[in-house]
Each structure stands twice: as C-alpha cells, then as structure tokens.
C-alpha cells in the first residue's frame, strides 16, 4: 500500500464528503463543549446586564458537598438504571428466545413486542400515568382481582420509581430485536453437535447461546446504561420528580437548574459530572468485557 500523500485527490474528496459532520462537530459539539466548560466555572444566571463571574470549581464543590438534591438525584438515577437495565435485558432475551421459534404468525407477536418501543414521548407517558392510577388504573384493577395489595404507585414515594421501571420494560422491543438478530446468527451446527452429546435445554443455553450472544449482551448493556442515565421526558411529564423527591432523576434536576432557576453555571457543572459518570461506567463494562465476552473468533467449548 503506497503512502498516502497529505493532499492526495482522494483525501480532498474525503474531507469534502465528511464536511457536514465535521462542521457540525465544530459548531454543535466542540465549541459548545469548550463553552460549557467555561460556563460551568462561572455563576452565570442569565440576567440581563449582569456579566458572569468566574468562580473556578465552586459549582462543582457546591454540587458535591452542599447540595442534598444532587445526591438524591444521583441515587434515584442509579436506582432506576440498576432496576431497568438488568430487568430489561432479561426480558428482552426471554422475548427474543420466544420469538426465535418457527411458529405460524410469529411476525404478529414480533410486532406486538416491538411496537411499544417505537412510540414514546408525551403520549405514552400520559397513558401510563392513567394505567398506574391507584384507584382507577388497570394495574391495580388487575392486582385487586388477583387479591394482591394495590400500592399507590406514582403517588407513593416507595412505589413511584418501581412504576417507572415497570414502564421501561414495556419498551424493551429495541434490545429484543438486537438479541433476536444475535440469536439468528448462531450456527445451528453448534446446537446439533450438543444434541448428539446429549445436552439438555439448560446446558445448551448456558454453554452455547449465552457465550455466542455475549457481544450482543455487551452492546445492549452499554446502550442501556447510557440511555437509562439520561431518562427525562417520562419523569418530567409523569411525576415532576415527586412525590417529594422520590423520582427526582439527575437530568430532571439538571433541567430544573438550567431552565427553571437559570443557574446555567451550576447546570453545566452537572452535565460534566454526568459525562464522567457515564464514561466511567461504560469503561468499566468495556474493561470487564474481556472476561465474559466471546467473539466468534474465539470459540470456547
């Protein structure tokens, strides 16, 4: 391969083709990042004719040491993430396994499971507020019929977050499809060979399916973590962080600081801390992946 000249014709065209993204990167990513770092070191509150004052790391210090709500929102977000991501992955996998059968009308089932993840936003949030209504919603109606206790869901600080987590399970269709694609990529020869060796259902699952699926699990896990830490719309519409501070999640608190109290510096600092958290978790998962993710090139017994 001959050495690429810096200004080869192809290179010029390359830059031309990627220019929309590169320009966008400069305008909407790089410059805002720099600005955001700067803003997070000021006390700017958007008032007219009042210049922002440089206060160094004060915002970060206040967040970490003087702000109870910061820690509450962080705790709530971790609660949500560690509830919805594992449960979501398990459910998505179960559904994918069920959909991986050769049955008549399987596409109808696939549509039913995938559809809810396609719709989102305000309409769905309003639907679920009603579904979880303690007195008239369908969830408690069914629980009552079965003779089970009927919690207050979104009106009860102890049950509000579980309600949100349950709601998130309705939208596992996306990761389910990715699992399905992964399942369909496992060569059937493996299963046949295992059958000949007399392996039962569980053994097949544990020694073939799971390892072969580990790259997909990895992908869904990373996407799930990144997504769950940024949950906002549902909480904003359904609970506004309540009851009390039970569902005050991180991005909601950030939004309040930015667009309700106009503490722009403070909110920018929050955004950076969020980035660090997500980055750290993702790197942890990536690092750990060496131990449990098998790629097709390293088939294990």
């Amino acid at each position, binding site marked *: 391969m001959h050495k690429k000249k810096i200004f080869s014709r192809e290179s010029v065209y390359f830059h031309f083709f990627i220019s929309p*993204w590169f320009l966008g990167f400069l305008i909407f990513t790089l410059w805002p990042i720099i*600005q955001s770092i700067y803003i997070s070191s000021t006390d700017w509150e958007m008032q007219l004719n009042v210049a922002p004052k440089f206060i160094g790391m004060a915002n970060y210090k206040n967040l970490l040491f003087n702000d109870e709500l910061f820690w509450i929102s962080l705790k709530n977000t971790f609660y949500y993430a560690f509830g919805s991501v594992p449960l979501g992955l398990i459910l998505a996998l179960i559904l994918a396994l069920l959909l991986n059968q050769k049955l008549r009308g399987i596409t109808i089932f696939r549509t039913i499971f995938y559809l809810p993840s396609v719709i989102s936003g305000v309409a769905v949030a309003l639907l679920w507020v009603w579904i979880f209504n303690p007195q008239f919603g369908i969830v408690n109606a069914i629980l009552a019929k079965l003779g089970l206790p009927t919690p207050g869901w979104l009106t009860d600080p102890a049950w509000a977050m579980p309600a949100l987590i349950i709601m998130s399970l309705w939208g596992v269709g996306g990761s389910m499809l990715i699992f399905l694609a992964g399942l369909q990529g496992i060569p059937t020869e493996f299963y046949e060979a295992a059958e000949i060796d007399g392996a039962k259902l569980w053994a097949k699952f544990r020694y073939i399916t799971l390892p072969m699926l580990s790259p997909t699990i*990895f992908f869904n896990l990373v996407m799930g973590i990144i997504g769950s830490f940024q949950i906002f719309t549902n909480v904003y519409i359904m609970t506004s962080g309540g009851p009390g501070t039970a569902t005050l999640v991180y991005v909601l608190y950030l939004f309040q600081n930015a667009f309700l109290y106009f503490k722009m510096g403070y909110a920018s600092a929050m*955004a950076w801390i969020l980035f660090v958290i997500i980055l750290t978790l993702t790197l942890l998962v990536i690092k750990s992946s060496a131990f449990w993710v098998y790629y097709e090139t390293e088939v294990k017994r």
Partner: protein
Amino acid sequence: MKRRIIQVIFGYLLLIPFAILFLIPFLWSISTALKPLNQAFLFPPQWIPKPVMWENFVKGWKAAPFGRFFLNTTIITVLAVLGTVLSSSIVAYGFARLESFDKNILFILLLSTMMLPGQVTMIPIYILFKNLGWLNTFLPLIVPSWFGGGAFNIFLFRQFFLTIPKEFDDAAKVDGAGYFTIFWRIILPLSKPVLITITIFSIIYHWNDFLNPLIYLDKLEKFTIAIGLRYFQDNYQATYINLMMAVSLIALLPILILFLVAQRFFIKGIVLSGLKG
C-alpha cells in the same frame, strides 16, 4: 412428530401471556378514550364503555389547535429527517470508501461523540440559537440534522456501506464516474434497508421530541403535538382523561402506521447493519 406438537403448543403458551401483557396498555387507553367522563372514574374499572363515545376523538382534537400542532410537527419532522438521511449518508460514504491520512482519528472522534450526553452541550447550544435569533422558530429543531445527522446514523450507514462489494465502485470508476456519482447512483440505491431503517428511526425521534420544542418554542402557533398534549394536564386533579387518551392515541397513530407498513425493511436493516458487535 409428537415432540414437534408439544414444542408448538409450548411456544404459543409462553408467547400469548406476554403478548396480552404488552397489549393491555393500548387496549386500556382505547377503552378510556371511548368513555364518557363520568364512567372514567368508576371502581371497579370497566372495560367496555356504554355508550361508546367516538366523538371523543373529535372533541379532544378540537380542544386545542391540534391541527396546527400536527402540521408543525410534520414540517419539522420531514425537514429534519431529510437532513439526517442525506447528510449522514454522505458522511458515511466518506468514511467507508475514501482514504485519508486522518481518517482513523476522525472516525474515533466520531465514535466518541456517541458517548457524550446531550446535556453537556444543551446549554451552550441554546445560547447559540438565542444569539442567532432563532428562538421561537423551527430552525433549532431542523438545522443540526443537516450537519451530519447524528453519529449513530453515520455509523450505521458506514457499516452497511462496507458490506457493498468494492467491485461495483471500480466498475463505475472505469466508466469515468466521480466519487459523488458512485455515491448517488450506485451505493445509495443498494442501501435500501439501511436507508429505510434510519429514516424510520429519525422520524420517530423527531415526531416524539419533547425537550427541544419545549425550550425553543414560545408562540402557541408554533407548538408541536408533544407540547400540545401537555394542555390536558391540569394542576388540579380533575382532568378530561378520556379526551387526553383519545388525542394521545391519535398522536401515536402516524408512527404506528408507518411502522406496520415498513416493518419488513426496517428489521432487515437492523440485522444487516451487523449490530451484533
């Protein structure tokens, strides 16, 4: 043979309960949407409304300028999706087919931006648009899509383009075609599954977007459906829950129809983009 029958029965036995669980939210909302208000708050809750109030859909629609909101949302979505598909495919073509000394660095840069939470840049971007005088217009909701359309989409396109044999390109080059012609006449037409996938993902994102219209739009006539639904939420406990459900369902309809129609391509697109790893 018997084993097969058992397998089939078990298969359905397991699928049907889950399917019912997943369908219940829809069915319950439809039931509420069709009720007169004094039946919505009954205990124990009823499933079948008596009488069936089909007019709730019309009443709900008229309760706020939803026609206007629908139009606004459509305009924003169409223009933003157009921008997304065009610009992300062009950029992806560059990464997939063209060589340059800095290609790898830039690609890593691209991938790393996928990890950046939007909140980090949200405030400076808001200020940027404010200084440009673009507050209260659709521009902040449309223009960014034309600048690359999102790292995720570029990534998907690139993965797909890589699976197209280079021989097609070479054949065209021999005929004297330039890079752009190859992109437009050869690569794109062969990329139908991923084009459809990204179009659909993009439509869904912009149609349901709540946060951006919330912070950028002030005038009633510019609001989108997502904001419009907020009018049904009142501070006081008494809400017209039936109308709210009705309009929520109408708001979901376009996406549902779109998905049902384009299902086949869509799912193939995800698989073919090699998302397994």
